[in-house]
């Protein structure tokens, strides 16, 4: 102790002596880029150990007074920090060496920020300039292929569909529960990413491992995506304007018979006598698709001073879908402000975001009357689109084209199917610096989302054998979320080597939902429609409905992160979460984490290794949860049921009854995850990247499971059961391959692989719960129409199908049973030995072995940029239900069929493929050119009116390499059952866009 005081004294004396004898000198010079020789504007120059400093001007020049012997520190984003000791010279010119990865850059984690170099969990950080641009309907499409282990899929080109994100496979059973990640927008958990305009995004931070997500407790199990929107910077105001126009076209049609081929088919197979020629030649796919034009406009204004900053933007996206009359129009207004007060100790931040959205929907997803793709594909190519008088040709009185045979043009042109949304997100936070490093923050937010749905079908569209009286529906629903969070954060460095960051907090969140709806039939006016519900004559019990529910989530949490001299890291966190939705017996859950890290390159023994700029090893463990099930699932609630006649009074009375089995043990689903990561960088991070290995174990999986009847009233109960694992590896490397004045080339290669397995079925899981990947269609109804089976010890995504064995000489389709005898389905039905589950085998897997992405960024002569990214999924199969369904000759002579039907017809098969077999399994590996963009930038130096102008030409989904026979091999990956190409998807499009943006 005594010794230490002596050392301090010595240091103090030395300092005083330096001050006493130092001699002041005026230094000037220019700072340039070492590679290009260009002068750098705004480089910060600070005298080490002081706050005295300056910055370079427009020509890269600077001037500063400093003492001889002191050190000047030159720092600039994108360049290695450079230190120069002052020996007395008056001119010091410095050439900065560019640095490719900023290890001091801050990344956003739950309830805090962290230097990139300090992270111990698996976090992907993507900044605004790395995002894809072009014709994007969804902010999540900007990160496709940008973060390894983060799979962004959109099953088709529907402008009103949202992209789906799966981080490291899905934890839990989707369909039953939500396996989407938690979105945190500007600190508001549970916010909707669709409220953010792509141009307003400052950064994405994707928390992938449980150690990172567990601070969000029972909501973190599927990963957390933190979106930070732009805020103003002090300095002159900046005005940015941008506009993009896109042209979309159908990427691929499917091979249905043309009218000519259809007639030839009738003749070839001697079926003329049962075929009724509709008299026209129609390509129904051409009839419903269009070349769609989409436009996006964005204008933003930002600026501020040392005390206050602001960022305001308005953007509008008008996206047309390639199916006629399908579109989304969205307008987003955002205002972010911040203000510092009380000697900069209090920071007030506020933001408000308002979104208006109008979606013109088309119905998809099944084989129902209004299902636009189904009605288009099946429509007889000889049927006319319009009558002679120009009206749409609905079904005629006498024709028998089959059940629910509806003209798709009638659906598209005469029906209204509209969603109108109004969303508002307001947030306000106060941060007070109580003492140096000690901050108290309170944040509140209010989110509301209103949706009005309108459906109107005038009379006649379902016409055929008589009259269709039409139908109208209106629904209005209101969703609100209130959040209040308080955190206390302490950040300190002791003795220059002990760095501590600790946070403690409380979170309160309430969700409320209410809905009102009205249905009616028998419309009396095609023009009034749902604008006056009195114009419908048929209203029944249950046509007017409303509901309301609420839930509340409360969490207490704490976290510490300590490191010794930026070398050795240890951290941990704990969150206790209570939810009103959890059953009486399980109200609170505990979510702990622990993590370790070692920055090898900061060790003294590595100081000679100049080539190594970063080498970090980190390990973490954490537990997070999923609680995305409905309110009141744990308890018995009496709802309105039947209306009966009271035998005593003779009046109608309402009978109340429970509609669900209660489960007081219902609780969150839990995911425990180990993560091991390595971050590396070589040659000033000219090559850098990371490698992650993870193992997730999800237990207490939520689902509506089968329970014994009796004694239960209903055969399904919401419960927790079973467990699954997801194990995987993620790798990425970024290299600045060329970096010269004339050209630079940055390339990033990412690879990931995830293997999911069910490890235990648990108490509730029964055979019926294991059946996944359902298919449907006319004649394909009932219990055997599933393609996947989930079982303990078996991989997720395994296709479990019958083995097709050709067509026999009677013309029946043959399948092999378990003892490899050939069976026909009709005979086996009659004989009571219907092909059973034991006759199926594992015929493929829908999970890709590996996902690869390759992004490139070129800059030529400072002005030209070229970006492109390829993405490929390899090793997965798809069950091509579209081909199975439309290759069935039975639909002739009424509905259309694919060319492939002739192959089976030639073998004597007249029937329908009604059992799922390996005949329709196909390899679906593909490589897609997701994105290609050419840009031209002009920077106007010394221009008072305009700072920069950028022109760009972009293409999305321009090229695809695959052996898959269907329209598109990429299926939405979600939950346990995926990889089925159902004919009811919105097809993908190919897009070319032109963009212009300017900054003033």
């Amino acid at each position: 102790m005594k010794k230490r005081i002596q050392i301090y004294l010595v240091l103090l004396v030395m300092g005083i002596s330096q001050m006493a004898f130092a001699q002041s000198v005026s230094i000037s010079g220019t700072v340039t880029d070492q590679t290009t020789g260009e002068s750098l504007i705004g480089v910060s120059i600070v005298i080490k150990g002081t706050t005295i400093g300056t910055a370079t001007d427009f020509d890269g020049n600077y001037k500063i007074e400093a003492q001889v012997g002191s050190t000047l520190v030159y720092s600039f984003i994108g360049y290695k920090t450079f230190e120069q000791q002052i020996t007395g010279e008056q001119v010091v010119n410095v050439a900065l060496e560019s640095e490719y990865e900023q290890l001091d850059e801050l990344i956003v984690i739950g309830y805090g920020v962290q230097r990139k170099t300090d992270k111990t969990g698996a976090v992907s950080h993507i900044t605004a300039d790395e995002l894809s641009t072009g014709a994007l309907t969804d902010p999540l499409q900007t990160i496709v292929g940008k973060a390894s282990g983060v799979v962004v899929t959109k099953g088709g080109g529907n402008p009103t569909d949202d992209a789906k994100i799966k981080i490291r496979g899905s934890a839990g059973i989707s369909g039953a529960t939500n396996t989407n990640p938690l979105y945190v927008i500007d600190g508001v958990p549970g916010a909707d990413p669709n409220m953010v305009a792509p141009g307003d995004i400052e950064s994405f931070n994707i928390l992938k491992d449980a150690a990172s997500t567990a601070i969000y407790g029972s909501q973190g199990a599927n990963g957390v995506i933190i979106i930070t929107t732009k805020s103003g910077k002090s300095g002159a105001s900046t005005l940015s304007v941008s506009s993009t126009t896109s042209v979309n076209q159908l990427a691929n049609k499917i091979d249905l018979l043309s009218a000519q081929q259809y007639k030839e088919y009738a003749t070839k197979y001697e079926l003329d006598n049962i075929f009724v020629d509709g008299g026209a030649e129609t390509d129904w796919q051409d009839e419903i698709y269009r070349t769609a034009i989409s436009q996006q406009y964005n204008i933003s204004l930002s600026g501020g001073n040392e005390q206050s900053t602001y960022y305001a933007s308005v953007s509008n996206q008008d996206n047309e879908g390639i199916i006629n009359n399908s579109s989304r129009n969205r307008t987003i207004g955002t205002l972010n402000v911040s203000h510092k007060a009380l000697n900069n100790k209090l920071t007030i931040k506020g933001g408000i975001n308002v979104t208006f959205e109008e979606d013109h929907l088309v119905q998809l997803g099944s084989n129902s009357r209004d299902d636009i793709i189904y009605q288009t594909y099946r429509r007889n190519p000889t049927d006319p689109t319009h009558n002679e008088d120009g009206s749409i040709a609905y079904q005629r009185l006498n024709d028998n084209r089959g059940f629910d045979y509806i003209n798709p043009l009638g659906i598209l042109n005469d029906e209204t199917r509209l969603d109108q949304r109004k969303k508002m997100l307001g947030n306000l936070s106060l941060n007070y610096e109580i003492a140096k490093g000690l901050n108290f923050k309170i944040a509140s937010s209010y989110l509301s989302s209103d949706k009005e749905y309108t459906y109107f079908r005038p009379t006649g569209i379902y016409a055929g054998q008589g009259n269709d009286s039409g139908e109208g529906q209106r629904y209005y629903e209101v969703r609100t979320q209130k959040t209040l969070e308080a955190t206390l954060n302490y950040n300190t460095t002791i003795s220059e080597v002990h760095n501590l960051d600790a946070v403690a907090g409380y979170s309160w969140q309430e969700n409320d939902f209410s809905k009102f709806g009205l249905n009616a039939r028998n419309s009396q006016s095609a023009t009034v429609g749902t604008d006056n519900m009195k114009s419908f004559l048929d209203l029944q019990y249950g046509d007017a409905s409303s509901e309301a529910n609420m839930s509340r989530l409360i969490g207490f949490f704490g976290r510490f992160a300590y490191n010794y001299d930026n070398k050795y890291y240890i951290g941990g966190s704990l969150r206790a979460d209570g939810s009103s939705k959890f059953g009486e017996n399980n109200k609170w859950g505990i979510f702990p984490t622990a993590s370790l890290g070692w920055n090898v390159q900061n060790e003294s023994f590595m100081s000679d290794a100049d080539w190594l700029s970063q080498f970090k090893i980190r390990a973490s463990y954490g537990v997070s949860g999923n609680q995305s099930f409905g309110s009141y699932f744990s308890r018995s609630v009496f709802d309105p049921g039947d209306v009966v006649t009271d035998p005593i009074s003779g009046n109608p009375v309402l009978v109340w009854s429970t509609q669900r089995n209660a489960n007081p043990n219902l609780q969150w689903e839990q995911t425990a995850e180990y993560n091991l990561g390595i971050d590396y960088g070589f040659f000033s991070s000219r090559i850098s990247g990371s490698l992650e290995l993870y193992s997730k174990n999800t237990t207490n999986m939520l689902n509506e499971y089968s329970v014994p009847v009796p004694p239960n009233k209903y055969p399904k109960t919401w419960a927790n059961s079973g467990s699954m694992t997801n194990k995987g590896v993620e790798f990425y490397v970024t290299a600045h391959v060329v970096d010269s004045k004339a050209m630079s080339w940055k390339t990033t290669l990412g690879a990931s692989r995830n293997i999911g397995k069910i490890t235990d079925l648990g108490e509730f899981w029964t055979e019926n719960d294991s059946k996944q990947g359902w298919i449907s269609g006319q004649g394909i109804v009932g219990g055997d129409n599933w393609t996947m089976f989930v079982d303990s010890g078996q991989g997720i995504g395994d296709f479990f199908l019958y083995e097709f064995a050709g067509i026999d000489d009677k013309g029946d389709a043959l399948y092999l049973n378990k003892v490899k005898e050939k069976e026909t389905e009709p005979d086996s039905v009659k004989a009571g030995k219907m092909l059973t589950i034991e006759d199926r085998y594992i015929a493929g897997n829908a999970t890709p072995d590996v996902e690869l992405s390759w992004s490139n960024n070129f800059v030529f002569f400072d002005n030209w940029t070229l970006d492109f990214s390829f993405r490929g999924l390899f090793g997965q199969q798809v069950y091509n239900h579209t081909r199975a369904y439309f290759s069935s000759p039975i639909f002739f002579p009424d509905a259309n069929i694919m060319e492939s039907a002739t192959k089976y017809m030639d073998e004597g098969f007249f029937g329908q493929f009604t059992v799922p077999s390996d005949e329709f399994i196909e390899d679906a590996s593909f490589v897609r050119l997701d994105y290609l963009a050419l840009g031209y930038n002009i920077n106007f130096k010394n221009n008072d009116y305009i700072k920069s102008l950028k022109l760009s030409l972009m293409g999305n989904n321009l090229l695809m390499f695959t052996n898959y026979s269907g329209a598109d091999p990429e299926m939405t990956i979600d939950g346990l059952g995926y990889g089925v190409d159902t004919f009811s998807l919105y097809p993908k499009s190919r897009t070319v866009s032109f963009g212009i943006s300017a900054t003033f």
Partner: protein
Amino acid sequence: MKIKFLYSIILIAFAAGCTNLDETIYSGIDESEYPQTDAQAAVSHLSSYDALADLFDDGGYWYLTQEITSDELVAPTRAADWYDGGKWLELQYHSWSNSADAVQNMWNKLFEGIAEANSILDKIVSTEEAALKIRAEVETIRSLYYFWLFDNYGDVPYLTTYFSAPEQPFRNKRADIFDSLTTTLEENYQLLNSIENPTYKNYASKEMALALLAKLYLNGSVYTGSANNAFYEKTIQYCNELLSLGYLSLEDDVMNLFRIATSGQSPEMIYSVPFEETSKKGFRLHMRSLGYISKRTFNMTDQPWNGLAVIPTFFAKYEENDVRRDGYFLHGPQFDYQGAPIIDEKSGKQADFNPNIKIPEMTTANMQIDGIESFNMTFDGARVKKYEIYAAAKENLTVNFPVFRLADVVFMKAEAELRLNGSVSAETMTYVNKIWSRANQTPPAEGLTLNNILDERGKELFGEGHRRNDMIRFGTFDQPFWGMGQTDMTGVPTPNDIQNVFPIPLSAISSNPNLEAAPQ
């Protein structure tokens, strides 16, 4: 100062419920608070009837199963229509597995009704007369569910409590359930309301209990596995009680039982399940059976689904002049509601619901025999129009479905007399003759015998859900008939030997292995 202000904000937030996780239930009533009012309490036991409606279509399958497994109806595969994964053919050919939709859904729906009834009974603690009356009513409707359940599945768990039921119950023996049901009904029926007030025809009444007792005893030898004359004596006893009631009589026009204007108040009706097209949905036989074109025949609002047809051998049982033939069935050339012929565009001929449907399914092999034209089965088969199809009929029909009616009681009594004495009493014959005469039929030369009573019952009670039960009692259900017995087509499937009861569903076994153990 500012710090204090911040702290006070937090304190307010914490005080206002920092750990409050109470739920507010808005659109329902929590179990602990139900019933809230006397009015709710007065009708709360009526939820025990809720499960009934679903039993008549594919929510609960009871009705469709009774009809399609019997020789009354066929659900033919019509090209791409009605194959539906083989779920109808399975019923037709008696080749169902324990995972068939019908087998699983009928079980679940019947036990849903039983669970609801038991949960009501568990809450009745009062022994006042009014409470006992409600108890008797709920136990009686539960007995109806159990009757259908053990009639279809044999040995099943017989539970009489909901809240104290074992988590994984065992099965009880069918014969023991028979005893429990008859005892329960015999104890209760005097307590029940009488349909002297016709409003009670839609509820578990004294007369409904008597009819159910007669039905149980008539089938007693099937349920207990041994013939017992006492069962037939009991049948006759309960039938006599019903026939002696002055407010019950046979209709002059049989079709009055199926017209919405008259069926609810019909003096022949004992117990019916009420359906209403908008508020009490669930009866869709007309949609399943009538042709696409029949929308025009009846000027309906919805287009029917062109499915179920009458099995030709059953249709052939009717004389041409039998009023029930044209009353129950839609057959022959078709006309629209204004009388104009309906022309089929494909053939250019008038559409014809030819009763001679060929085979239950249209397979490639079958088509090769007669050629594809004969197998374009759009129009084949007589359709069911027994339950009135009024103008503007929707997807759900308004019907009072006759579960028990006096004509059934008459035939039950006649059958019991035949089985007990070998002949039908003169008194009973007066009722039987009335049934024949109102159908414009003369009595068969040999009179009513055990050889022809199954047919005579069938002709009268077609489409009322009795046929499977009747065929089992007469031993014909597990014999080949029509579709199963066709020899001119491909292969003759062997009827399996356990057809008379359905297997315990896979869904039930997989969550409760005790159901596989021997019944207790």
